[in-house]
């Protein structure tokens, strides 16, 4: 079992410092510079500065079951031009192991280039693709643009909603993000509109280099619907160790937002060096009655993952969902889960969390289900399963359940199990290789989550899991 190939993540990228990059360090002048380079209005700058002042007074949280080397917040450069030139001239210069992983995932050549930071030739014209998409979105009245653009073009909407779901006082990393956010995505779905396409295909190609302090805001007006997909199954190159994104979702009456994430950032080498620290604040606000927010995440990358996509179920009959697969292997650590805050009557939430720990990986589910006194007939069901592969890994489950209403029904179940020898033998006796057997069993374990992903992505996610866990079974 030990002899299976280890699927190491490619490392050792060449970094060229661009001229349009601020020197490391953070103070007010840095924030002023960021704001002025982005040609932001005064109110945006003020928001940033207020967040910065607040952040200065805050302590980095330490309650999660993760250990990492201290982050030097003054050792980070907080601005570099978003339109970096490709740093490599051809795929020949890319780490062959990275290419091998792309091969295994079946990623088209041009996409491989984009992901690896190679100049893209004329065949692959992302600009024209983007234009086509934009046209059909514009026809539907959907706004889909970068956050920087939104701040300039749609200031009223941004001002009305930004920071209302995740205020800068929310937590240490949210405050930092609010002060220095680089760029991100803005989506606005007008009343009654069903977004004509998954906001994903476009994004998969263009997401590269949105920076380390992403800021996303999605607003779904009354009766509208949108499905948004971020990330990519392919491991993405990135020189920034710290990622602290903030995602805010607002669903008004009868609106539905589906937000899917596939995160496969660099996890660090075998000694745990150099992986991404991913500290994300994601929250959805079901503001309107019958609104619906669904989070689906497949987390396989990063050295440290700290994220709790949450739902505030304010509206009557609102629905919150959280489906998660988190894989940790090698020295990866994940502390992830969700919060479901039931405020509205008849609000319902479902949590399905599947944690897979392999080798020395550590995986923690941390979740809060709170039923406020006014949340009549609130319902929650939580299923939290851990799968252990190898005897040095760790799986933790920390659910918090707070109920203040006697009509609430809350159920929480958690199990821990391993890929059993019996199961492996059975599959192998029927002719499957051990790798296939493991991947089949693991996909079975994760099925409830994968079925929530957009179709073509579910297939990729399965492959991703198989590639991620190669060499982990032993």
């Amino acid at each position, binding site marked *: 079992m030990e002899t299976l190939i280890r699927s190491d993540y490619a490392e050792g990228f060449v970094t060229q410092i661009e001229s349009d990059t601020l020197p490391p360090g953070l103070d007010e002048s840095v924030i002023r510079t960021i704001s002025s380079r982005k040609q932001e209005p005064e109110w945006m700058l003020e928001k940033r500065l207020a967040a910065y002042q607040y952040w200065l007074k805050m302590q980095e949280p330490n309650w999660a079951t993760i250990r990492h080397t201290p982050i030097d917040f003054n050792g980070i450069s907080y601005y570099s031009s978003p339109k970096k030139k490709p740093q490599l001239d051809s795929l020949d210069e890319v780490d062959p192991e990275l290419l091998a992983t792309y091969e295994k995932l079946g990623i088209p050549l041009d996409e491989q280039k984009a992901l690896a930071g190679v100049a893209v030739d004329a065949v692959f014209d992302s600009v024209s693709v983007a234009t086509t998409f934009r046209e059909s979105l514009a026809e539907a009245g959907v706004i889909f643009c970068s956050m920087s653009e939104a701040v300039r073009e749609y200031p009223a909407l941004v001002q009305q909603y930004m920071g209302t779901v995740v205020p800068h006082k929310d937590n240490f990393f949210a405050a930092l993000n609010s002060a220095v956010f680089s760029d991100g995505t803005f989506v606005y779905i007008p009343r009654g509109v069903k977004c004509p396409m998954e906001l994903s295909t476009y994004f998969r190609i263009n997401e590269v280099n949105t920076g380390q302090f992403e800021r996303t805001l999605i607003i779904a007006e009354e009766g509208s619907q949108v499905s948004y997909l971020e990330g990519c199954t392919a491991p993405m190159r990135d020189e920034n160790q710290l990622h602290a994104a903030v995602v805010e979702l607002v669903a008004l009456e009868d609106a539905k937002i589906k937000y899917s994430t596939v995160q496969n950032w660099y996890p660090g080498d075998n000694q745990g060096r150099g992986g991404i620290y991913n500290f994300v604040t994601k929250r959805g606000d079901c503001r309107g009655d019958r609104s619906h927010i669904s989070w689906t995440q497949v987390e396989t990358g990063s050295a440290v993952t700290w994220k709790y996509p949450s739902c505030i179920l304010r509206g009557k009959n609102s629905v919150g969902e959280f489906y998660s697969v988190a894989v940790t292997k090698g020295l990866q650590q994940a502390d992830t889960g969700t919060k479901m805050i039931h405020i509205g009557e008849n609000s319902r939430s479902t949590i399905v969390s599947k944690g897979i720990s392999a080798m020395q990986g550590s995986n923690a589910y941390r979740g809060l289900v709170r039923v406020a006194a006014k949340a009549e007939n609130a319902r929650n069901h939580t299923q939290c399963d851990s799968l252990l592969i190898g005897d040095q890994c760790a799986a933790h489950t920390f659910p918090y359940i707070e109920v203040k209403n006697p009509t609430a029904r809350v159920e929480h179940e958690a199990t821990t199990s391993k890929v059993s020898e019996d199961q492996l*033998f*059975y599959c192998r*006796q*029927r002719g*499957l*290789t051990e790798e*296939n057997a493991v991947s089949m*069993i693991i*996909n*079975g374990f994760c099925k409830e989550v994968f079925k929530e992903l957009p179709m073509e992505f579910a297939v990729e996610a399965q492959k991703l899991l198989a590639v991620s866990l190669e060499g982990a079974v032993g």
Partner: protein
Amino acid sequence: MLSIKNLCASVDGKAILNGINLEVYAGEVHAIMGPNGSGKSTLAHILSGRDGYTVSDGEVHYFGQNLLDLETEERAHSGVFLAMQYPVELPGVNNMTFLRESMNAIRKARGEAEIDAVSFMKQVRHRAKQVKLDEKLLKRSVNAGFSGGEKKRNEILQMMMLEPQLAILDETDSGLDIDALRTVADGVNLLRSPDRALIVVTHYQRLLDYIEPDFVHVLASGRIIRSGGKELALELEEKGYEWLQEGAAA
């Protein structure tokens, strides 16, 4: 086809098999009987390549190659099939997908093309009908929540689909009522052919009423203490295992 010479094996330092000798030729059906703890299931597991057993002595040749050198799935590829006493549950793994993946793995190993979806479906439906397995169960997770009888039917279905050269049935009759037993046996009988051998491991004679063996071997304390024709099974039924064990001890 299969030649076992002086096979000795242990689990956790405890000797279970103490010198098994057995020759199986194509087209034959061998029944291995014996009391609980005699080593019947161990023999079945070792032949199919289950971990956890230490072979301390002896050889097993299968079509001339050393079977014990092969990985579990390589044995499956070369036509060894084990119908288990306690079929394993695979939560979340679709029964049909599992079967198809297995079939294709074996076909691939044999250098054959993958089966196309249409003929696969047709074959599965046909076979499921033969073993009276509810088609709904094909769409569920492998064995998860199946009744004892359903699991055994599913095993036979897999056997029919994978078309092994050497099929080993480990206590396939345990936990089956008479109707299920008959169905399972009918399925097995359909597979009898001049180029295929069967080893039927069982505690009771009743399965052999339906799957008629060419040879019956009695296993006790890890040895074959008596071999004979199908009449030996009837004799055992009548007299129990003790008369043989006493005889062996004397």
